[in-house]
């Protein structure tokens, strides 16, 4: 059995790229590598991760410039063919700007950069990143962002709910969806979503920052382990 091949795209200003590579190696025993934003060859990956950070300084809007990188043309083509793409934090913002995920990001409702642990409830098992999790399962995962207030127009959101595209919601520790559990004011407590096909997922929290015992929390590893399981099932 060959190892999972994971490509992490490195934009100018990315700062969670190495963390994503290490999580892929240590949790999934993957062959993980970085591909620069100005390269087009993603290297035949099983999974592309768009990491967190502040690509292009987050000037104009978070993710607005990164979407025009040559590497993003290849990511779009890869996603179009059904390839698995995970956007974490800035990666989620880039996927929205690129139109690979619906909606857009607004400044956090509280106007502050928020850096803390939040609780995420798994809303669907349909994506490769949530396949082995249970619907309703609550994960503790850190966030660190200023523009995570995801929004969409009512019609788009209605269609997304119909198609089971809400992947994670912010909840309290016991799994209840309360306004107080929402760290950024996002529509309907949304913390992560997927495209209609379910192969492209974006989330604001950072699973790569809580994937090993050494980091004091391993809840994030469940998302990477889920992908490894989904890949095995897909290959067999």
């Amino acid at each position, binding site marked *: 059995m060959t190892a999972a091949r994971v490509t992490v795209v490195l934009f100018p200003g990315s700062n969670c790229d190495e963390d994503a590579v290490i999580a892929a190696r240590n949790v999934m025993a993957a062959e993980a590598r970085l591909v620069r934003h100005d390269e087009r060859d993603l290297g035949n990956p099983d999974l592309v991760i768009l990491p967190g950070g502040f690509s292009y300084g987050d000037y104009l809007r978070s993710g607005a410039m990164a979407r025009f990188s040559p590497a993003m043309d290849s990511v779009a083509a890869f996603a179009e063919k059904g390839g698995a793409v995970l956007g974490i934090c800035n990666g989620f913002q880039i996927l929205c700007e690129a139109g690979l995920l619906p909606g857009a990001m*607004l400044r956090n409702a509280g106007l502050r950069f928020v850096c803390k642990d939040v609780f995420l409830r798994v809303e669907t098992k349909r994506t490769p990143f949530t396949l082995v999790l249970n619907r309703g399962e609550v994960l503790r995962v850190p966030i660190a962002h200023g523009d995570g207030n995801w929004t969409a*127009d009512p019609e788009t959101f209605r269609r997304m709910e119909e198609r089971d595209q809400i992947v994670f919601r912010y909840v309290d520790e016991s799994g209840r969806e309360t306004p107080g559990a929402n760290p950024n004011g996002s529509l309907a407590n949304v913390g992560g979503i997927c495209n209609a096909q379910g192969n492209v997922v974006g989330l604001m929290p950072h699973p790569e920052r809580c994937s090993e015992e050494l980091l004091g929390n391993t809840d994030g590893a469940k998302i990477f382990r889920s992908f490894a399981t989904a890949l095995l099932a897909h290959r067999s």
Partner: protein
Amino acid sequence: MTVYVRVFLKEGVLDPQGKAIHGALHRLGYGTVKGVRAGKLFRIEMETADAAAALAAARKLADQLLANPVIEDFSVELAPDGASR
């Protein structure tokens, strides 16, 4: 030619910055302020003397990059003469 591109969040889209500025103005005693929307203004210099072409190019680049049509609207306008610096 110089073109101004104005970008604002669409009506109905929450503007956390505008809301905070509105609140601050009220605290400063500007009770007549009824609403504030924070936007962006870009001044774009173009190497053309053709106003229609400059405006068309500005609309195109605003739609592609300066504004996110999911949440923002934009408008374009020629800058008055002498506003090119």
